[in-house]
């Protein structure tokens, strides 16, 4: 679905953001792209909808080279939800905001009406249909931005730092939502530095450092590898931090889920001869 062939990218101000990146993302995959600020994560994903074109190498989305088509054409299939919803909201009502993308892509009015209703319901925004998006809270505005992208049903969904500013419950809802997308076999990419969130979702993780990919694999393996994490300046998830410190005890290393951790610890504690009550 997305193929990146050894791309290099330098910003006009001279910053080398990507230094030889290659990867393949298949249909229906759920991938988290992680790394420190400045590692190149957002730069990389901006190549997937044509906002950036590589200086060297090729990017193919759905078999089409990104340099050959416009951003608008690519966006029909690659829905990019930006970090700050306030960079996108401008309409008088939430309804119009969601219809914006649909109109740009030339959908018919009756289809637009249906899709808007669907998107409103999917993200629990039905009661705000006629509300001005500027009147909503931060979390609600984020949902409007997401709804406006989902409305045109792109094959690939990219979320740039979706967890910033969200509290615990909002992140839970987001996690449920992403799992829903996964179940519908929609290719989902999230760019994030929120290790806890990634640990709870357990996607494929692409770890970037200094314009290169330094790790690519299951979250459960990448996020428990202390060397790779130090190299990329990533704080390990809390659960794996615990197990990293139990290295001298016979405990498995690759644990990021709290319920797994509980099972394992219970096992270890019960095996001991004298237990506390």
């Amino acid at each position, binding site marked *: 679905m997305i193929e990146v062939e050894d791309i290099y990218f330098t910003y006009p101000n001279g910053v080398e953001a990507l230094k030889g990146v290659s990867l393949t993302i298949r249909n229906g995959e759920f991938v988290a792209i992680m790394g420190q600020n400045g590692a190149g994560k957002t730069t990389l994903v901006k190549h997937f909808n044509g906002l950036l074109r590589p200086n060297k190498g090729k990017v193919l989305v759905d078999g089409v080279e990104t340099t050959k088509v416009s951003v608008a054409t690519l966006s029909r299939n690659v829905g990019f939800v930006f970090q700050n919803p306030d*960079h996108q909201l401008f309409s008088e009502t939430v309804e119009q905001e969601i219809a914006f993308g649909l109109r740009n892509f030339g959908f018919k009015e009756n289809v637009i009406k249906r899709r808007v209703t669907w998107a409103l319901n999917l993200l629990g925004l039905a009661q705000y249909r006629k509300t001005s998006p500027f009147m909503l809270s931060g979390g609600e505005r984020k949902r409007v931005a997401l709804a406006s992208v989902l409305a045109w049903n792109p094959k690939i969904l990219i979320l740039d730092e979706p967890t910033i500013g969200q509290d615990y419950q909002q992140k839970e809802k987001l996690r449920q939502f992403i799992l829903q997308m996964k179940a519908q076999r929609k290719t989902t990419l999230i760019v994030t530095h929120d290790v806890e969130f990634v640990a709870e979702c357990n996607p494929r993780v692409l770890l970037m450092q200094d314009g290169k990919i330094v790790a690519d694999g299951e979250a459960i393996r990448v996020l428990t590898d202390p060397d790779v994490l130090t190299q990329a300046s990533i704080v390990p998830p809390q659960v794996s931090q615990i197990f990293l410190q139990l290295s001298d005890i016979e405990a498995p290393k690759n644990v990021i889920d709290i319920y797994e951790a509980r099972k394992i610890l219970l096992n270890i504690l019960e095996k001991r001869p004298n237990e506390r009550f």
Partner: protein
Amino acid sequence: MSVFDGLRFRKVYSPIHNLDPRIKFVYVCAIFVVAIIFWELLPLMVLFVMQIPIVLLAGVKRQWLRSMRGAAFLAAIIFLTNFIVAFIGAGYTVTAKSLENAAAMTMRFVVLVESFSVFFLTTSPDHLGLALEQTHVPYEFCFAFTTAVRFVPVLAEEAQTIMDAQKARGLELERGSFLKRIRNYIPILIPLIVSAIRRSLELAEAMESRAWGTAKKRTNLYVLRMHKGDLVLAAITAGILATAIYIHLYIPIPSLHELLGSLL
């Protein structure tokens, strides 16, 4: 846009950069006055050439050339306008006099761009802000000035992000009729304006929280002090002004074509 490029400050260090901006500004104003005094081409050319050593001393040759190039278009318009008017006035004939006059007007403009460009290229915005403060411009204006400059790169980046975000929703900024294209900028302008308003609110909160508005008189971490170099520049400025006024009043200036004629 390259005209504006020539006005942007670069962090280079040269003796010109270290001069007190107030003196530099007085110098630029003096050049302005001298340029206005003379209508003849010769002194204006002298004025132009006289400032080139300053450009070289300040090490801003490349950016300065860029601003000169940017001004070239306007300069050409000024030349043509003046020439055409003179042309018609002289009865539809080309005279050396009308050519020279047009050239003189153009040179006046070029001299102004040259000196202002050097000023802005060698004066950092904080230096400027400080100069404003010390010349007793009310602090609110100085603050507005430096804060505006401080946020220029931030706003520029934000505008780019907003454009990217809306392009990713299918907005086409390069196609369509003229009217449609203007309408397509609404999804860019509104988030930009809303963001600016929100930003102002947050800034106001931060300002208040740092004791803005305390009744007493405001002090400053920095102070601009005059050095030897500044006094030298002040003397040079006075000298230029005095010489110019003297020449203008007492010495007749030949026109260029007369001068060339007598030499050949």
